[in-house]
């Protein structure tokens, strides 16, 4: 028996597998047993109704997909009245995700949403198609510090801050979020991209720019998880391009305590469950009694090779 549980500050998950925000809803109960997940992560909500962006909202790209949904939301009243109770039909801890375009609204949103029946507040300051001063605070360390600090003061519930891979210096932003009082970091949201349809000469998605996700971004995000894990003491949740058991292992070796999964669910809607089962088998086979022991277990030395030519000219 492998102990599959992981602890993210005060929250214990029965396994490290969660969906990424925007890639999960209770609609998935059509195909899978939601109660098996480590946690549920709700779609990002804003205070007021937002329709989202014009379709097409997503397209395939070489290493995965590009999307610009535009954070459609029915607003927080609907979230409290309908969505939270709907999620609560299931047993895993519930992570509520919030977004806003001003720092003041973020603070107010946090205060309001944290009062609802959620277990964790995730702060989405990294929607890639928003501008740095309009919700995409995670591009800059000062913005990140300020918004995290304000939010921290509004609630005793755990606060997870979702970072942006588009930041030039994600380590500085991670440290800023930690200083601001974040209990964990989600690394990361999508990478800003553009796909042009070479038949029509138009952008492939309605909003022109979109966020990249899927397997192609994994090496970039694994690197960021590793860098952030070295720089902060709070737990890191890895997110980007996970499609198989070994990807979860790779994120944990890099320093992640748990992971979130987006794209895979679109390709294999029962993929998260298969990964939970497969990860347990992997640990058993490799002799790990606790999956948590994988976190940060990368051997930080180069592969062993004969290489002793540093001082000599190439022949």
């Amino acid at each position, binding site marked *: 028996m492998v102990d599959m549980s992981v602890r993210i500050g005060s929250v214990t998950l029965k396994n490290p597998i969660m969906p990424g925000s925007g*890639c999960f*809803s209770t*609609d998935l109960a059509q195909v899978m047993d939601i109660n098996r997940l480590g946690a549920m992560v709700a779609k990002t909500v804003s205070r007021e109704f937002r329709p989202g962006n014009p379709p097409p909202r997503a397209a395939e790209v070489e290493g995965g997909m590009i999307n610009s949904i535009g954070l459609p939301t029915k607003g927080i009243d609907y979230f409290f009245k309908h969505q939270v109770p709907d999620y609560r039909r299931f047993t895993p801890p519930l992570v509520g995700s919030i977004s806003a375009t001003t720092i003041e609204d973020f603070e107010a949103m946090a205060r309001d949403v944290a009062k609802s029946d959620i277990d964790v507040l995730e702060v989405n300051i990294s929607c890639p198609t928003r501008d740095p001063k309009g919700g995409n605070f995670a591009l800059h360390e000062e913005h990140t510090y300020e918004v995290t600090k304000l939010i921290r003061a509004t609630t005793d519930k755990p606060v997870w801050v979702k970072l942006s891979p588009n930041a030039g210096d994600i380590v500085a932003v991670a440290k800023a979020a930690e200083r601001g009082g974040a209990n964990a970091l989600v690394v990361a949201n999508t990478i800003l991209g553009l796909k042009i349809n070479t038949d029509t000469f138009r952008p492939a998605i309605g909003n022109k720019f979109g966020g990249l996700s899927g397997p192609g971004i994994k090496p970039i995000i694994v690197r960021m998880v590793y860098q952030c894990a070295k720089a902060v003491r709070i737990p890191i949740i890895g997110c980007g391009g996970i499609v198989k*058991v070994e990807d979860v292992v790779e994120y944990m070796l890099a320093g992640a305590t748990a992971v979130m999964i987006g794209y895979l669910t*679109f390709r*294999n*809607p029962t993929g998260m*469950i298969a990964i939970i089962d497969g990860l347990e088998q992997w640990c058993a086979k490799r002799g790990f009694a606790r999956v948590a022991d994988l976190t940060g277990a990368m051997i930080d030395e180069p592969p062993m090779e004969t290489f002793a030519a540093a001082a000599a000219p190439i022949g």
Partner: protein
Amino acid sequence: MTASEPFASDPFMVGKHKPKDAPAHISAEESLCPVVSHAWVNAQYKHLVVEASAKALAVAPGQFFNLLCPSPDVGELFFRRPQSVYRIDRKHGRIEFLYKCVGRGTRGLATLQKGDALNMVGPLGKGFWLDPAWKHIVVLGRGVGIATLGPISQLAGENNVGVTAILSARDKDFVMADVLFREAGEVISVLDTDGSSAVENVEKILAGLIAQQRADAFFTCGSNRLFQMMKRLGKVHRIPGQVAMEQVMACGLGPCYVCVRTFEVDGRQELRRVCIEGPVFDMQEAVGW
């Protein structure tokens, strides 16, 4: 490791298996279905028959499956492709699709051979509804839309509701499935080659059916222009209607909000997800595409 031993888990191998202990109330599933037959119907359309699980066989007319198409080239294919069920053969435990080869997904799908396994998720979405009070319905399909209208015509036939199927196509090679529709009722083919597929002509045919009181409900799929005309006629004559819509999908299940289209109720516009709130919608509420 010996050469025959399985590898470290392959990308995308996960999820090909049913979750263990999946509760029985789960209504759709991701399953591997053996291909029974797969043949070209004409130069563009293929007819695919697969063996389906009990859950898949519970599919209703107008519902769809989200198919993991093999990649037709070395590049990877990253989204599934939705295809509505074209025929449900519960006796033999089979599900049939009729699809047009248009791009990479369907081209990859077309490579499947008898005996290969097709990974499908479904049944998905809200299908057509049939009011037992209706005596006679009209289905109007063009192109791929014809496939989608098959099962509702079949169902109407089985329930002794008369069906007039107006099938619009480029030329007579592309009038598909007329046999299927003929089993359920009367078939009128309209073609581009002789001009009979012109919207005005189809409108005349519909007007005739209305006059003959053979149009208690409208069903359409596959052409925005035909849909707009039928919606207008339906509104004027107060004939209830249903339209099956399409949109690019990612998840096919509801969470991602990729597949929205615009709808209008009481002059107010709103967005709905084609995959879970549709693909079948009230004709008067749909705005079109």
